[in-house]
């Protein structure tokens, strides 16, 4: 047996030996750490209070396997390896959840995953591989910002005033064709949680927004152009702010001057270009929308559903399920210096986040009570990367987003829906998952490194099944599963064994338990 194979064994079976010891939590009982623990406890108290009022029983805490898989998917975008899972399952320290979360947030995969998530939030889904390539520059830019944990208000400001194209948010502006009305609609949805676009054509039917609010916001984007506009097709997405250009109400000559929605602040008293004026207002301390939207995003990212639902439509008719919680978390976020990473960590260490997604009660509690963890769809990127990991297939560098196969898979699987508690995949995509790569390569004995490692003669069937289940589900098989698959394997000729293990891995890879985050 090759040395590589031996090393693989060590990794698969001896887990805790093979991985680095979990980082010892820095026992700096800093002010912010104390505040974080207090805020986490407060979250749990407020959620519990509401459950008590509604007379609903909360689900018990998730098993260790369920928790580590969920935390990995939510914070670093991929499932854990067999070794990482084993190490976590064997760890008996009472603070192991907190230490896992802190460790994941320090991983270089964390900013990559956040950048993926935000790119999806910012750009319409596309199934065009060329557009996915164009998005790479914005992806890199976002990753850089998240990697240095730039203050969130600074990130928003830089986004709203960006001029660089290919290494910045330029493609967002290009995708909106530099049109003031599209830019106004999208930026207010993304950063303010306001859906103003209905007010584009008429006064908003359910909200206080008037047509003038919409076009007043659009006016801040009325003075943009791309330098040398003749190179549009050349994938250069730089932007220049001019000092001319206005918007008019549709089918009228009336020019609408810039105005901040819901505010009487005078834009002209703020210096700079129109976009700089807008950015100053958006990130100002008394802007009521921006930090609430960020908090609601973070909550929805972790819990599958915002405190206001849908997470990007925080209009009055969508009342928050826990108004007090939203207010207090927003205060906390502002006081932390708009620290997005700390916000995610605070939510991730709560018991609320650690609840099981299994059904417990007789009747189903409404999702907005957060009595149990939501079941979330994986993003196409998560799904692809998880499939590579389960077969121990070589993938591209995690920071590199230009793998052709991955782009093709992501393009095919991208969905229009933004609610991740829905599974929007269609039948053509399901066929591609079942019969195409990477599942076909991950489950074939010729290409799957996992199956090659499992072919070693000294392993028992039970050991093999343990590894398969840990790889796919981050848990060991239960008795019924052990019986079922042992029986299946016992009917197979010895030379068909690797293939039969591949069949089991195929079954697990196409199952809801694998394809969903729970």
């Amino acid at each position: 047996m090759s040395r590589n194979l031996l090393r693989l064994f060590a990794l698969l079976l001896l887990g805790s030996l093979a991985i680095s010891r979990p980082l010892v939590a820095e026992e700096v009982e800093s002010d912010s750490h104390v505040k974080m623990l207090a805020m986490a406890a407060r979250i749990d108290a407020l959620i519990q209070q509401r459950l008590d009022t509604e007379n609903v029983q909360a689900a018990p805490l998730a098993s260790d396997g369920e928790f580590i898989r969920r935390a990995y998917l939510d914070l670093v975008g991929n499932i854990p390896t067999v070794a990482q899972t084993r190490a976590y399952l064997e760890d008996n320290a009472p603070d192991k959840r907190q230490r896992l979360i802190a460790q994941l947030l320090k991983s270089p995969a964390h900013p990559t995953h956040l950048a993926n998530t935000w790119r999806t939030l910012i750009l319409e889904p596309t199934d065009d591989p060329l557009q996915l390539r164009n998005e790479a520059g914005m992806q890199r830019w976002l990753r850089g910002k998240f990697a240095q944990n730039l203050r969130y208000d600074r990130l928003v400001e830089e986004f709203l005033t960006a001029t660089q194209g290919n290494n910045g948010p330029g493609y967002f502006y290009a995708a909106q064709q530099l049109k003031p009305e599209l830019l106004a609609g999208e930026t207010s949805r993304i950063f303010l949680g306001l859906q103003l676009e209905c007010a584009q054509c008429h006064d908003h039917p359910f909200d206080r927004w008037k047509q003038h609010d919409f076009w007043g916001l659009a006016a801040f984007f009325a003075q943009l152009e791309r330098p040398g506009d003749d190179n549009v097709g050349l994938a250069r997405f730089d932007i220049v702010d001019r000092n001319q250009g206005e918007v008019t109400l549709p089918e009228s000559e009336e020019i609408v001057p810039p105005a901040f929605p819901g505010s009487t602040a005078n834009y002209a008293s703020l210096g700079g270009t129109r976009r700089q004026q807008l950015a100053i207002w958006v990130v100002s301390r008394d802007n009521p929308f921006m930090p609430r939207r960020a908090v609601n995003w973070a909550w929805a990212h972790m819990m599958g559903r915002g405190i206001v639902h849908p997470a990007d439509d925080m209009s009055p008719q969508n009342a928050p399920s826990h108004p007090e919680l939203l207010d207090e978390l927003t205060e906390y976020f502002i006081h932390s210096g708009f620290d997005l990473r700390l916000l995610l960590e605070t939510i991730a260490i709560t018991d609320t986040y650690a609840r099981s997604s299994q059904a417990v009660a007789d009747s189903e509690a409404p999702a907005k009570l957060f009595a149990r963890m939501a079941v979330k769809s994986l993003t196409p990127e998560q799904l692809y990367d998880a499939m590579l990991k389960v077969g121990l297939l070589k993938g591209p560098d995690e920071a590199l987003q230009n793998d052709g196969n991955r782009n093709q898979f992501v393009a095919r699987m991208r969905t229009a829906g933004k609610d991740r508690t829905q599974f929007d995949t269609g039948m053509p995509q399901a066929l591609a998952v079942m019969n195409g790569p990477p599942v076909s390569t991950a489950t074939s004995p010729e290409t799957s490194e996992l199956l090659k490692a499992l072919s070693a003669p000294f392993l028992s069937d039970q050991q093999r099944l343990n590894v398969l289940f840990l790889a796919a589900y981050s848990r060991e098989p239960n008795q019924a599963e052990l019986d079922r698959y042992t029986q299946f394997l016992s009917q197979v000729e010895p030379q068909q064994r690797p293939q039969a293990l591949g069949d089991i891995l195929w079954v697990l890879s196409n199952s809801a338990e694998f394809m969903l985050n729970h």
Partner: protein
Amino acid sequence: MNAFDISRRRFLQTSAGLLGAASCAWLPQLAAAAGSDPQRKRSCILLWMAGGPTQTDTFDMKPGHANGGEFKETETNVPGLRFSEHFAGLAKQADQLAILRGMSTKEGDHLRGTYLMHTGQRPGGPLNYPAIGASLSKAMANGESTLPNYVAVNPSTLLNSSALGPGFLGPRYAAATVGARGNAAANDPNAMADLGVDFLSLPPGLDQKRHEARLALWKEQQSQFLASHPAQAVEAQATIFQSAVKMMHPEAASAFDLSKESTEIRESYGKGTFGQGCLIARRLVERGVPFVEVTLGGNQIGWDTHTGNFPTVERLSKELDQGWSTLMRELAERDLLETTTICWMGEFGRTPTINGTAGRDHFPDAWTCVLAGGGIAGGQAHGQTNESGMEVTDGKTEVQDLLATLCKAVGVDPKTEHYSPQARPIKISEGTPIQQILG
């Protein structure tokens, strides 16, 4: 009642039929009986002419005028209704055709025109609209079905696929795509095109027996998780994957398997991807699939004849005529033509004037679409252009009206509403159906 019972019951509600119907022995009988079933829903076949077909050399000819070009008109089985000499097969079925000579639209770019004609909307707005195939198939679907409701044959992969996609309806309403496999047709113009569904067949090295063993284990694995984790996403995953499994069943998959047809039949449609695509469309309509789109011109956007218009249009016209006329004849023989509406269109028309390189350029101002078959009063031309073909003088038709007419013809109210992500109700078409051509 405990949680298991609840989830189990819900599981059965969503997937019972799917899991139960391991055998699809009823499919061939269904196909045979399709025409005689009074409850039978209707179908729609969109013949998409990628590149923008010239109206002046096909259905709105200008003989005697300088713009007229090289082709002659032919008489048809409808007195007074004439079109290109290269449509010999269609000329015998002109009584099925309603020719709309007054099309007038506002997009002259391939991507934008493709989007406009598929969705009824100009591109660039805040919403990503569904293609007519997605919204109509959603409205026409026969409840639970083994086969997809929307199938696209030979779709162009160069054109932005958002123009052909499900838009805000979501991927569940996306077309299942059928395309050329291998390079037989590309290398040898006389070889029979080999068409199939992506990822429908088992990966190499996996036989049916092993596949079934996998599925048996998979079903147990699924039902265990469904019981412990009842949630929308879990149920949707189980349902969609089970539908895909059903479609892979040999009897369902055989709908796409053209080797089940005799060489004689296959050749009668024409050996190219378009003719073979029309044959797949017939097989799918026989099995109740509501919407099939078959593209002619594909990635080469073949109808985009800026240079050397005439030899190209002659070749494409003959390919079109053979596939289309055989399709209508075979549907009629099965009593299916009266419930199947056919729509012929491209992204725009072409200039009546001939340019310096014997070509015709993009021209959305005055051009032609054709509706045929079920729900259509055939044997007529609706609307007309002036002598030069440059202007519509009567029966001006916009894309919304065309789509509304198509909806009516297939028995769907064009005002049927679907909901955008902002929960705004959006009608399939805001246009007015053209009563004169509805049968």
